[in-house]
């Protein structure tokens, strides 16, 4: 390894040195280099990096040893749905895709906007493809709605994946993603461009082990009249960051970003979103619900940026409600509304607390045992955040229920 490469990250950890070595082994490419440099500015982000105070990858990723854990099942898998599979050894795509979907494999690495703001996204872009570097593009044309499923799973040391979606004007895509961990570090970058009146229905399921680190970075850009509806269910990992960076770049674009997180002992789930209203008359609806047990940690960071020049007639709301189910549960929340425009409707709310004692007693007085009463109330509490998942709602709720009845 050249001295220059080694010096990319200041005071690198063992894991970071391993990442530098992996980068050095790939075919030289100026764009790849630019992406890796963007990552190297922070290295694995940790406490000292703005926006990563509560989600410390630098400390959590102690080595790049493949973890030994049984692979979790995939509740979003559906018979007959085209599936892209990403593992530490590369990706696998079906030979035939449904009409309206085209898969393009670019030999060279594609640029990524705002790479510095998303270091783990930049890392995914710089190292994606493993031995077959390049960028996977999915072109979605207008027509009947199409459904694509993506699975990200181990086993292995590093699972770095990148997919770029282009939704042509009027196209409609349902994408389901199962981020199942299984690697010491999994990082996925998924980019969506929604052209005029395109519709994206995205469902994200994340689960990971207590020795695994997972990052899912989504970058969504929406043109006029485009609409996205995103629903996430996260169970966390040693550290897990699910980040969505969305830009309304033309008038009349709409986004709904819903998420539920359930973090048990030794696990952390971080839901971070950044929404920029870069055009007037756009709508953002955000609802995040969480429940955390003793030794678990939930993080919510939501930012709405509404510039004075472009953000007029913005209609945006942000809600985060967390339940601390046991003593020793931790929730950190940072709602941030940066509103510079004056003609806007923006609302936000942020609460955290324990289950309501009066409700618990009411259920128990009717004969429902404490553990079950807690599960019922917690499920009812998070249910609203999963309502938008359409055909996947039931599958997500079943996973949440199973967790609540066994863990809570």
């Amino acid at each position: 390894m050249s001295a220059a490469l080694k010096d990319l990250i200041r005071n690198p950890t063992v894991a970071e040195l391993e990442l530098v070595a992996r980068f050095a082994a790939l075919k030289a490419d100026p764009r790849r280099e630019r992406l890796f440099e963007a990552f190297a500015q922070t290295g694995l982000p940790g406490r000292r990096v703005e926006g990563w105070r509560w989600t410390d990858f630098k400390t959590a990723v102690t080595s790049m040893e493949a973890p030994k854990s049984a692979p979790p099942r995939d509740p979003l898998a559906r018979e007959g749905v085209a599936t892209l599979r990403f593992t530490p050894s590369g990706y696998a795509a079906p030979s035939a895709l449904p009409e309206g979907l085209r898969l393009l494999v670019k030999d060279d690495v594609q640029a990524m906007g705002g790479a510095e703001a998303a270091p783990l996204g930049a890392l995914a872009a710089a190292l994606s493809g493993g031995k077959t570097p390049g960028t996977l593009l999915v072109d979605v044309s207008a027509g009947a709605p199409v459904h694509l499923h993506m699975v990200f799973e181990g086993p292995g040391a590093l699972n770095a994946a990148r997919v770029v979606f282009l939704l042509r004007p009027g196209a409609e895509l349902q994408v389901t993603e199962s981020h199942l961990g299984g690697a010491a570090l999994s990082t996925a970058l998924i980019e969506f461009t929604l052209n005029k009146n395109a519709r994206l229905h995205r469902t994200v399921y994340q689960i990971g082990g207590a020795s695994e680190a997972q990052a899912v970075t989504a970058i969504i850009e929406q043109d006029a009249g485009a609409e996205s509806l995103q629903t996430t269910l996260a169970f966390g990992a040693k550290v897990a960051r699910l980040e969505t960076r969305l830009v309304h770049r033309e008038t009349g674009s709409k986004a709904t970003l819903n998420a539920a997180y359930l973090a048990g002992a030794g696990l952390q789930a971080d839901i971070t979103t950044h929404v920029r209203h870069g055009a007037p008359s756009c709508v953002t609806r955000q609802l995040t619900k969480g429940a955390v047990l003793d030794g678990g940690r939930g993080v919510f960071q939501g930012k709405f940026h509404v510039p004075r020049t472009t953000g007029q007639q913005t209609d945006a709301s942000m809600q985060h409600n967390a339940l601390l189910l046991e003593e020793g549960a931790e929730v950190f929340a940072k709602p941030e509304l940066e509103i510079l425009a004056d003609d806007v409707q923006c609302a936000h709310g942020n609460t955290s607390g324990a289950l309501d004692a009066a409700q618990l007693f009411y259920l128990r007085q009717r004969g429902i045992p404490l553990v079950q009463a807690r599960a019922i109330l917690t499920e009812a509490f998070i249910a609203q955040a999963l309502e938008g998942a359409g055909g996947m709602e039931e599958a997500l709720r079943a996973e949440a229920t199973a967790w609540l009845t066994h863990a809570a």
Partner: protein
Amino acid sequence: MLKIENLTATVGEGEDAKTILNGLSLAVPAGEVHAIMGPNGAGKSTLSYVLTGREGYAVTGGTATLDGADLLSMEPEARAAKGMFLSFQYPVEIPGVPVMTFVRTAMNAQRKARGEAEISAPDFIKKSREIAKVLSLDPEMLKRPVNVGFSGGEKKRLEIYQMMMLEPRFMVLDETDSGLDIDALRTVAEGVNALRAPSRGMLVITHYQRLLDYIKPDKVHVLAKGRIIKTGGPELAHRLEAEGYDGVLAEAV
């Protein structure tokens, strides 16, 4: 059936602890309905919560048994499975949980605790439909989340619906008449009376005699300052209504 002896209980903690029940003794034999009347702050609601095991109340002495079983050592859900039912003065809203789901979960949890088989879905629905009819409850209401957006009267009727569905052995009705108009009161009383049986007991807590015109008690107890100061027949309720509590309280001292 229900036997309370020399019960004392406090609410609050440490220096703020306040004695609410102060040597209360009471026995309700199977098949009987007893009424408890008393002024504000006498300890009526505290008695209902102590019997059902709500947190925040500390029993500092005495006993309470149902059919000989020590209620005070049991978790609230175990008391419910044993047959204790409280019709709440202020029924609690449970957003996101439909009434039918809630009651069926409760019924099956109680049955499981007693080692009985679960009720089948068709049997449950049939029973629910019959009871809703008796109480003039809109069946659509039973699909909505428990008590959310219900009027005061609807909430009280829903308490009686749950009571009739769960068929408890002993019922405590905490001010079930408050917030009810005269028609609703009659409907609710019909439901309660339908549950009167030689094997069941009932404690009706109320401020006013009016409810007792519809649910005729075998005995009336006057509760003041945490203990029963006077016991009599239904005529005692009429006397309280006419004279107020002051006369009876003065007499007892």
